[in-house]
């Protein structure tokens, strides 16, 4: 009997609620499991992508390699949510934010253990992998 082809739906593990499970950059999830947050870089023209992409719009190449997000980025802006969309209520309150790493920026959440009055725009933060209570994975920003 022919073996049923397995569907690679690893991406369903991303975030509190994932809205998509199929993507060519599914290895992102395996890297998260290893404690690494990764972006991609076009092997042909060198353009760097975060969030990671499978395809380069500049040179139309689909030959990309992974790189690890390392060092720290500057907090560009953030907001603490007091209401949440359906499915996220148990996470409240939480803060969304953008970090600027220079070559790329990252959208994510700020670690919930940082007191709000210690969050300053421009502060250096690092991106780390976070396991959510429901077993899902995401990444959060911690003080550098």
């Amino acid at each position, binding site marked *: 009997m022919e073996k049923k082809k397995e569907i690679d739906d690893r991406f369903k593990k991303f975030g509190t609620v994932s809205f998509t499970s199929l993507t060519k950059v599914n290895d992102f999830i395996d890297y998260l499991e290893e404690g690494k947050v990764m972006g991609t870089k076009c092997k042909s023209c060198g353009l760097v992508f975060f*969030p990671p992409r499978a395809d380069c719009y500049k040179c139309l190449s689909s030959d990309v390699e992974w790189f690890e997000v390392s060092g720290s980025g500057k907090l560009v*802006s953030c*907001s603490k949510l007091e209401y949440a969309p359906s499915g996220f209520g148990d996470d409240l309150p939480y803060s969304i934010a953008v970090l600027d790493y220079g070559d790329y920026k990252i959208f994510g959440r700020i670690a919930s253990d940082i007191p709000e009055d210690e969050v300053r725009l421009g502060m250096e933060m690092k991106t780390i992998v976070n396991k959510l209570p429901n077993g899902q994975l995401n990444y959060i920003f911690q003080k550098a």
Partner: protein
Amino acid sequence: MGKAGIIGVGQSKFVRRYPGSIRELAFEGFKEAMQDAQISVGDIDASIICSAPEYDKQRSPSGVFAEYLGLIPQPTFYLENLCSSSSMGVRMAYSLVKSGLHEVVAVIGFQKMSEISSAESQERMGRGADIQWESPFGTMMPAYYAMFARAHMEKYGTTLDDLALVRVKAATYGQLNEKAVFRKSVTFEMFTDPESPLSGPVSSPIRVGDCCANADGSSCVIVASEEKAKAFNKEPVWILGLGAASASVNMAGRDSFTGLAVAQHAAEQAYKMAGMTSKDINVAEVHDCFTISEILAYEDLGFAMPGEGKELVKNKETYKEGSLPVNVDGGLLSKGHPIGATGGSQIRTIVLQLRGEAGEMQVKDPEIGLIHNIGGVGLYGNITILGR
């Protein structure tokens, strides 16, 4: 090729919960525009139906509307650009008319948001962002705009009080607008009164009073060629400038959090096409989905220098009697924001202003008006310049 102009405008009342179907809702805005244009359904040779998807059970509403409005067998199609859908619809109507393919095009915007809960609605709106990389973090529109508010406050010293003043201005005119969903007065003090619902936190620094409300509503703008307008014996309001732009959906792709690049790009195009600058504008409608959005709009449109947008409200320059009245129909903050209908409603306001038919909201003798309509979190931007 002659000019293209607007010969009819209409909108339904914007309400919390429309007690009818979407085709009946669309009929309300359409009927008003047809009566305004004084033409019959056979005169319309194409229709563009504009909304944000996923609020309705009905798929492909165009055919359903065309039948209900008596617009078959003429062509009809659906156009989606989130909150700027119907401004993009007017841009499309202009190009259809200017190409000579059609002579009279009806742009019908609608949204019936009340069939789902507010949390579900926030979830759908949040999915107007990047569902692969952002939505899994639990995003919603107020939180995104709150990031712009925070960055603007940090860089330029804009304050919560400045934001409150935008809402106070909106409510001043919302009380005069019989089509608006929110017609109560709003005082500055309500924002610091813990008893007032307006002072409640939503997503820091955005409070309840800084947000526009979901609403059900429809709008209609009828665009015609110069020749047809003449044949109908109708003096149109001319479409003088159009601009449109897009941006990175993911906030990680944005260069600035103190302005919207789409508005800046689209404004530059529209001013250039009209051969004008911001100084030529006599009255404007801007996309105040949040109070901060109006301040960003002033700066992106060149009404104020970067960081100085708040001064226009403080000094009442954008009140009805000021040097450049903005949102004197109450804006989205008072009217409510039925996504697909909003652009058409903004355009209707400017058309009425330019014709001197805005009643209690009328500003003094405007000749040139501008409409700023944004889709998503500065994902899409449309600027329309109209003139008598």
